[in-house]
């Protein structure tokens, strides 16, 4: 009996180590693909013709949709950045989704809103009551919808889609700042390949700590908060290399809801965003892909690694935990909803590569990690683990994890160069090491809880993250760092 117990504990310990190594190896391959693509793109720098796209009459107009719930801390900065986009034709549709703070009052005052009769362009179902629709009288192309909240971001976005009038819709989080030409860059694939491209996304970076001025990130800086620093590395790895790699394999699943551009007609055709989904962004992409595939219509999902959207990331473990639980819950919903696509070659690389990866490593990963780590601890406690061997294996896993992050940091420095201060780069490198000890395990725990919530079919509710804003007291007109 004792022998069997020992075998089980040891087996679990080695499983988690092997699993971690396998995951890191796969991620390293994805990162290599991404790095290769980024390196190739460097040679083409300057030949993209952004000025031509700005001037071209073929460039489609864009509706920027911003759902906001209690966003008084940064909403004016977000709107300034959105309305200040260097783009030939756009409108901004802000949805005040049942805010209980001054979000609406601030916008109403700044843009001198006037109530209007809504001009509907679609009939997507919206569960929260539309209270009123307003338009700016300052000359800015801004429409504001006030609606009752039902605790779902997708509901707010569907309300915005019903009034959006342009052929492309860009979904943007209310705590995000777009760089001046971000929209132009992310729209480029739609201009160049309008028959095939259905969705495109850009890079999200952590804004905490950056020096901002009236909606513009003047100097990207890294926060002093280590939790934010680790997330900064995580975002670099995920966006600069991970998504570039997946896109290169034609298997990109996720266009971030914080900054993604979509063909409006298709979004309406599939019935808008699924109000039951917590991962509405990924669900939208997969639903669009499935719809196009079934219709035999062409479809390309593109990732553009250059345009940047700066967003606030959680500064406390409590908020981070809530966010990551929600993501994991949303992923479980997504995989269940589209379960027939998993492993299905009819859906190309998405069906055979991306969805199985997300199932085995993203969704079930925390189960293996948490139970595996517990078994390692138990085995060590019982004295049945060869500590020397385990240390070597753990060291290798740690090294591979660090290599992934270091590659992302190297690509950032060699190519995009947003962080220019030496101390920020040092902090990024340190964060890349530190995240493997503590953060990664806590992350697995949060994701496991999200998975459990999904299995228990807990009613999903969208709760906005507490915001601190981009530029605060006492001098909003000066260059001040966002709280770090």
């Amino acid at each position: 009996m004792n022998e069997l117990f020992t075998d089980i504990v040891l087996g679990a310990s080695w499983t988690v180590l092997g699993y971690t190594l396998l995951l890191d190896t796969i991620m390293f391959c994805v990162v290599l693909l991404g790095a290769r693509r980024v390196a190739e793109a460097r040679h083409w720098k300057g030949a993209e013709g952004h000025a031509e796209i700005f001037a071209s009459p073929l460039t489609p107009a864009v509706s920027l949709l911003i759902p906001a719930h209690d966003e008084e801390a940064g909403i004016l900065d977000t709107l300034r950045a959105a309305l200040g986009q260097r783009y030939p034709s756009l409108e901004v549709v802000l949805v005040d989704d049942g805010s209980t703070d001054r979000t609406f009052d601030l916008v109403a005052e700044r843009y001198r809103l006037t109530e209007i009769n809504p001009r509907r362009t679609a009939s997507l179902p919206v569960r929260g009551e539309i209270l009123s629709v307003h338009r700016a009288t300052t000359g800015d192309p801004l429409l504001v919808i006030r609606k009752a909240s039902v605790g779902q971001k997708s509901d707010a976005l569907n309300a915005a889609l019903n009034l959006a009038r342009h052929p492309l819709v860009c979904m943007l989080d209310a705590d995000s700042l777009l760089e001046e030409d971000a929209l132009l860059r992310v729209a480029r694939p739609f201009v160049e390949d309008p028959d095939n491209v259905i969705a495109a996304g850009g890079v999200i970076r952590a804004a905490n700590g950056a020096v901002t001025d009236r909606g513009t990130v003047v100097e990207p800086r890294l926060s002093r908060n280590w939790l934010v620093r680790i997330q900064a590395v995580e975002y670099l790895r995920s966006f600069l290399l991970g998504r570039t790699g997946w896109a290169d394999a034609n298997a990109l699943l996720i266009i971030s809801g914080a900054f993604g551009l979509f063909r409006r007609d298709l979004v309406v055709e599939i019935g808008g965003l699924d109000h039951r989904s917590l991962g509405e962004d990924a669900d939208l992409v997969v639903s669009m892909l499935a719809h196009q595939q079934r219709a035999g219509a062409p479809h390309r999902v593109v990732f553009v690694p250059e345009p940047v959207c700066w967003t606030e990331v959680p500064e406390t473990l409590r908020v981070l935990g809530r966010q990551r639980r929600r993501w994991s819950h949303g992923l479980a919903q997504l995989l269940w909803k589209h379960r027939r696509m998993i492993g299905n070659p009819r859906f190309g690389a998405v069906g055979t590569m991306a969805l199985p990866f997300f199932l085995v490593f993203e969704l079930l990963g925390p189960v293996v990690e948490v139970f595996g780590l517990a078994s390692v601890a138990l085995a060590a406690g019982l004295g049945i683990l060869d500590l020397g061997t385990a240390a070597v294996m753990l060291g290798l896993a740690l090294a591979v994890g660090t290599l992934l992050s270091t590659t992302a940091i190297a690509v950032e420095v060699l190519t995009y160069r947003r962080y220019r201060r030496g101390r920020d780069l040092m902090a990024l490198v340190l964060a890349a090491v530190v995240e493997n000890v503590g953060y990664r395990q806590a992350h697995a725990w949060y994701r496991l809880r999200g998975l459990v919530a999904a299995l228990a079919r807990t009613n999903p509710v969208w709760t906005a993250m507490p915001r601190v804003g981009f530029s605060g007291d006492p001098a909003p007109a000066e260059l001040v760092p966002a709280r770090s």
Partner: protein
Amino acid sequence: MTVPLGGVLLAGAAVTALIIVLLAAVAAVHLLRGRRTSRDERRKRELMPLVHAVLDDDPDDGIPRSDVLGAPADLDEIVLDLLPQLRGSDRETLRLLLAERGVVSRAVADLSARKPWRRGRAVSLLGSAAGTHHVAAMAALLADRSLEVRCAAARALGKAGDPGAVAHLLHAVAGERALPTGVVGMALLDLGTTALPILRDALTGEHGASRALVAELLGVHGDPSAAPALEDLVRDAREDRGVRRTAAAALGRIGSPTSTEPLVSALTNSTDPRLQRTAAEALGRIGDPTATIPLLAGLADDDVAVRAACADALAALGAEGRASLEQVAAGAGAAAPDAQAALDELDGPVRRPQPAGVA
């Protein structure tokens, strides 16, 4: 359970070495970047007088031609950056300078380079710097195995400005190595009105994608001579839906009242809501009051987007359309909110967004 510890240790050492190499590269690049930037700026300051001397063509400057021709390669970068901003004789002077310095001939040689980015850069350079001299060689790259190179070739042909490239570009929209229509469209627009006669002929071309693109471009040019052919496309119920929609939109841009009849027919008879919507929008652009009644009928359409487009079109018809809208808005019918929304639009024009940073 045995683990090949030697192999694991070796792998760990290799990964650690890789990390160290990457970190060293990061540190070196970070430290050297500032130095390289200031060096580039200094060189630019030194070389700019040479460019000015070439443009002024003033012998009193005392800069021998041999100095200009023997200047470092950074001069070529400066000239290539300047070229898109110049027109006429200045542009031609700099083109000649690049040719004399061997830049153009090196680019021609690079058109068959092994690496795609070198072919792409070469064809881009020729588009900016070589005028219409190498159109055939550039057009050959429209069938390159690399999509990026094909796109670069299309853009270059647009910049080169030779209308002889129109047929090549249109041909590149279809086939095994087809180019995205947007890239071809922008290149064709770059060629300007000289491309119009060939574009009109292409409206009856074989490929739907190409016909739709041509219809869109003729609309952007506002070419009234193309209106009859575009009207035929809108009328043809067997034609591809996308082509009919694009043709309808083009007719709206051209604005000829002769197009009212086919557009009204599309609005009232089509079963494609997207075509109906486009036809309504086009009728609004044309502004012909004879479309009032069909547009009023469109306010009762099942599709919300068609209703909104009809209301907007009525608002654009002037006094007659506005009066009809006011009547509908005052009623209790299902179309009243759409009519009122369109009237609200009329009463509050929206201007373009301000540049970033403006409070």
